[in-house]
């Protein structure tokens, strides 16, 4: 953009778009800075909040790596869900705080995305009580899942396991990443002293935590609970 640039300036300005630089960044720079200024993965799920608006329609984004990563393994996961739809839906009805829930296969992962009201721990406790048996069958197909089933006998471990597979929800406001990382002692948080390092902190968080939810998401309508929505629509419960 600047007038009067020399050839070296123009080359350097285009450097980040070159395949050579991108390869160097991927193979050398990111691992080097991850070693030099380590960043621990941020915890999954939405951050703690006291405000009512933040405790309604919260997202859970479970990404669970399959043991069997072949098409047969993915089909087995799909069947585990499909053969228990009635039990899953009935259980979710009984939980009563779930707006939406769906299972998705993404690459070698079985994902469960849901939107719920209230406290995460309570949600998972209700979940175990209502559809724990079905979910045990699903979790048995997931790496590390055997250690937490049957869920009814391993409630706390199961909750921790789900929490660990719930995606970190990056803050809605960019620079809050720094305060979050500092608050959890999750790394160098070097951009707190130099804002130009914010992209590096983000890169290193994504290096440690490849799958994240970008912010808390858009809402067209205000945050009503699932019970309020049903009540106002006159569809009972």
């Amino acid at each position, binding site marked *: 953009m600047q007038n009067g640039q020399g050839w070296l300036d123009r080359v350097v300005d285009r450097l980040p778009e070159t395949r050579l630089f991108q390869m160097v960044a991927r193979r050398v720079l990111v691992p080097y*800075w991850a070693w030099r200024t380590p960043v621990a993965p941020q915890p999954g799920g939405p951050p703690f909040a006291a405000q009512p608006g933040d405790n309604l329609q919260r997202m859970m984004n479970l990404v669970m790596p399959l043991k069997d990563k072949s098409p047969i393994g993915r089909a087995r996961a799909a069947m585990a869900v499909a053969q228990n739809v009635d039990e899953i839906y009935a259980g979710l009805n009984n939980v009563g705080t779930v707006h939406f829930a769906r299972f998705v296969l993404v690459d070698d992962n079985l994902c469960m995305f849901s939107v719920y009201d209230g406290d995460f721990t309570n949600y998972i406790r209700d979940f175990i009580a209502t559809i724990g048996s079905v979910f045990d069958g699903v979790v048995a197909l997931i790496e590390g899942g055997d250690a937490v089933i049957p869920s009814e006998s391993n409630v706390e471990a199961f909750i921790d396991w789900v929490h660990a597979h719930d995606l970190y929800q990056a803050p809605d406001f960019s620079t809050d990443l720094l305060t979050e990382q500092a608050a959890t002692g999750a790394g160098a948080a070097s951009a707190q002293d130099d804002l130009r390092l914010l992209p590096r902190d983000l890169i290193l968080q994504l290096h440690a935590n490849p799958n994240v939810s970008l912010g808390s998401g858009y809402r067209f309508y205000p945050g009503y609970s699932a019970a309020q929505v049903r009540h106002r629509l006159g569809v009972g419960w």
Partner: protein
Amino acid sequence: MSTPPIARQLVDSIIADFPDHAAGTRPVHTIGIAVTGSFTASDVARSYCVAEHFQGHPVPVTVRFSNGSGSPTEHDGWSDVRGMATRFHLRNDAATDLIAMTLGEFFTKTVESFLAFTKESRPVAVSPEGPWQKIRDMLALKVPLPDPMPGQTTSGSAGLLNFANRHGYAQLSVFEAAGIGAPVSYARASYHAVHTFVVTAPDGTRRYVRFSWQPVAGVRTTDPTAPPIDKYLHQELAERLSTAPAEFTLMMTIGETGDALFDPTRPWPAKRVRVVMGSLLLDTVAADQAASCEHISFNPCRLVPGIDVSDDPILKARRDAYEVSRELRGGTACPFHGE
């Protein structure tokens, strides 16, 4: 009542940030254009606020769009915050203003820190970062300093960055401002009145709220890699209005207990309840730009029954600072004149 000294200090300090500031012009948002139109409140607005302009009848408005800089030289294509000051013309020559900008938050949360901020953002000579330094930055996964705009010789960016690095509350605004870009049209940007106001409903319920204008045409900025064009926004707006009105929706976000009610450096989460308060149709470039654009004096505290200022210290300070600015440039007197 004499003008509080801090207001004069603020205005003087802001003016000092623009060495080419022209006497008799606004200290910031100096380049602008005024348009007229009308605002019509939504069906639900009156149930949240008893103020006259939220009762549903069309209200004539004057809107001044502006570039954020205090320089008298127009650089539309430079990355900069833009302003949208709206005057609602009410019955019996009453009026109320709503002042908004494209940045979603303010730089500081106290008057004293804002004064320090303005002092620290004094422009200094600026030149492009050398290629070797850029390479060192890239190797550190660090954003290289942006090249100055064509013809730009001074900048306050380094001071802003230093301030933000020492004051966490300023980091979001400085970071967002650095990448804010240039709108393709004044009618294609969102504008935020970053302060909290208190609105009163017919039943007496008082709510903490923040307002923002959302463009119906959508938000769009220019290509940041293309050479910037110095003058296009005024002509674009005139051409746009000659074919169809520009439309904005006024959104009101209701704060919750625990939100940063009096801290303009903190935007509220997008999850808060948002109410559509009305629609703004702008259809005419004001014929008398001297009266409608240059001499008109907006003030964020020019309010009417039904809307009050909150305890946001920056909002309260702006009342007197805008009045000082008006006096310095000989603007049309506002209701606070002589208080």
